[in-house]
């Protein structure tokens, strides 16, 4: 495994929706080594406050060495990050963690909710590269409303994928949850669901998959200090008891291994 700590240049900053920002870095080594589901830790500011790096899923990479993240402004770190200007340098650490275990593209269903859509684009494009028969993976994306979801759907469509949308307010696609859509499309048990989003969404997906006997991989979040297995801060309770570590054992886990009641 090859991981890097690099000062990289911000080459593009886009406001995708209200409080949702996409940054593009020129980060050759990290982009080249990255796998879908992995993440980077970004140092924000040069001072000691905020002190810790912030973790972000890798949203997209390009063969030229560009790496994108997609994030929502939720606190001080993300607020400062959104203010960076093109040309400024930031320190990135990555690629970190274990990504999704890919399989047959035609038997894959990607489900992203909210900012959980971020890693799904990278995963989708990797699947797309693997597709031979022209049978592409299914994609279900959910968000609060049209405004938030629409700009993201375009990227998946640009890959030639059809997106099934769900919004909380019904302003785009299905009026309701991504799990409703998942139920409707009725996957066979030879499918694998790849999912990232809010915890309740992933719990619902896990339970649905369990019932339908579908394999399900989820990408989870946990407060992180190091991102590389050193601090043991990012504990994720396991069904079998004890804890895994989101940064090094995950962030992608087989849903069935985790304890969902917590």
């Amino acid at each position, binding site marked *: 495994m090859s991981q890097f700590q690099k000062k990289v240049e911000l080459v593009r900053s886009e406001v995708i929706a209200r409080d949702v920002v996409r940054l593009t870095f020129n980060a050759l080594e990290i982009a080249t080594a990255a796998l879908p589901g992995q993440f980077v830790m970004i140092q924000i500011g040069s001072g000691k406050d905020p002190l*810790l790096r912030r973790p972000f899923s890798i949203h997209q990479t390009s063969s030229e060495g560009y790496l994108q993240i997609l994030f929502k402004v939720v606190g001080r770190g993300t607020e400062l990050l959104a203010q960076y200007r093109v040309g400024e340098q930031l320190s990135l650490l990555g690629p970190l963690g274990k990504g999704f275990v890919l399989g047959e593209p035609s038997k894959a269903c990607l489900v992203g909710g909210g900012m959980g859509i971020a890693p799904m684009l990278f995963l989708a494009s990797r699947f797309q590269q693997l597709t031979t028969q022209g049978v592409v993976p299914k994609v279900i994306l959910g968000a609060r409303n049209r405004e938030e979801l629409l700009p993201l759907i375009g990227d998946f469509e640009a890959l030639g994928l059809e997106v099934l949308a769900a919004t909380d307010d019904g302003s785009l696609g299905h009026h309701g949850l991504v799990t409703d859509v998942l139920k409707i499309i009725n996957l066979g048990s030879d499918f694998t669901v790849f999912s990232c989003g809010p915890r309740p969404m992933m719990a619902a997906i896990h339970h649905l998959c369990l019932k339908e006997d579908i394999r399900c991989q989820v990408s989870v979040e946990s*407060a992180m200090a190091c991102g590389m297995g050193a601090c043991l*801060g990012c504990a994720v309770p396991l069904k079998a008891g004890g804890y895994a570590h989101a940064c090094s054992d995950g962030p992608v886990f087989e849903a069935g291994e985790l304890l969902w009641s917590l």
Partner: protein
Amino acid sequence: MEPVKMKKDEVDLRVTIGSLSLQNPVMTASGTFGYAREFEDFVDLRRLGAVVVKGISLKPRSGNPPPRIVETACGMLNAIGLENVGVDRFISDKMPYPSALGVPVIVNILGDSVEEYSRIAERLAGVEGVAAIEVNISCPNVKKGGVAFGTDPKMVAVVTAAVKQSCQVPVIVKLSPNVTDVTVVAKAVQDAGADAVSLINTLIGMAINLTSRRPRLANIIGGLSGPAIKPVALRMVYQVAQVVTIPIIGIGGITTAEDAMEFMLAGACAVQIGTANFVNPRAIEDVVDGIATYVREQQLGSVRDLIGALRVG
């Protein structure tokens, strides 16, 4: 262990902690560097003064439920709960990697009773590559044992003596800052035969989420580390340096070479870097480089000239 030899043209960064010779005074702090392997892509591990591994107990511990960490102003709280694989799996699975690096490996140990401390020390005594034992008597996250040990000079002395008897390697006792007078504990530890003291462990702190009205840590309280605590750590190192003759290892909020050298001026022979590793996994190498540059530019005979060289009055 052979005294480290210096290459020609190199600046002299060597220090000794009792019978332990280090190529430079910069070590990792326990619990912040895993078992070293985690950092192999980011830092040249052979350049570390020493590796101090995550605290090891007799039996494996699964640790506290999440959330285990939270950021605070210029610092962080952790309540890992001393998660570790236990001494047996440590020896079989974890120790081989750091012990092959060619730098001293110091094993941080913790227990719920004096007997437990002794037994871990005994288990480690013969293990290849264990250069010293650091006794963690001060971790605030374990309710039994830990706290009581670390703040009561008598208990600390008993634990120190017990560990000393159980092994041949140098014994470093790591002091808690959560005491009225750290010099009393330091003296007790010295009198009980410790080869060195290291300080400080984390300050006990707490954070609250206003929205949920809950503590931000599942454990309610946790250990405060990082730049925020540096002034307290520096003061305690200075105070302890006035009363003990055994070597002192300075810890707390060190992120730069300047920080490290300030601890040495205050009386530390060596330093440990903790939280800074999370922000900059190359921190230790950067600090070593920075010290070397300073020693060269200031034309000091050796880095040892800094130890206790604070001008007061």
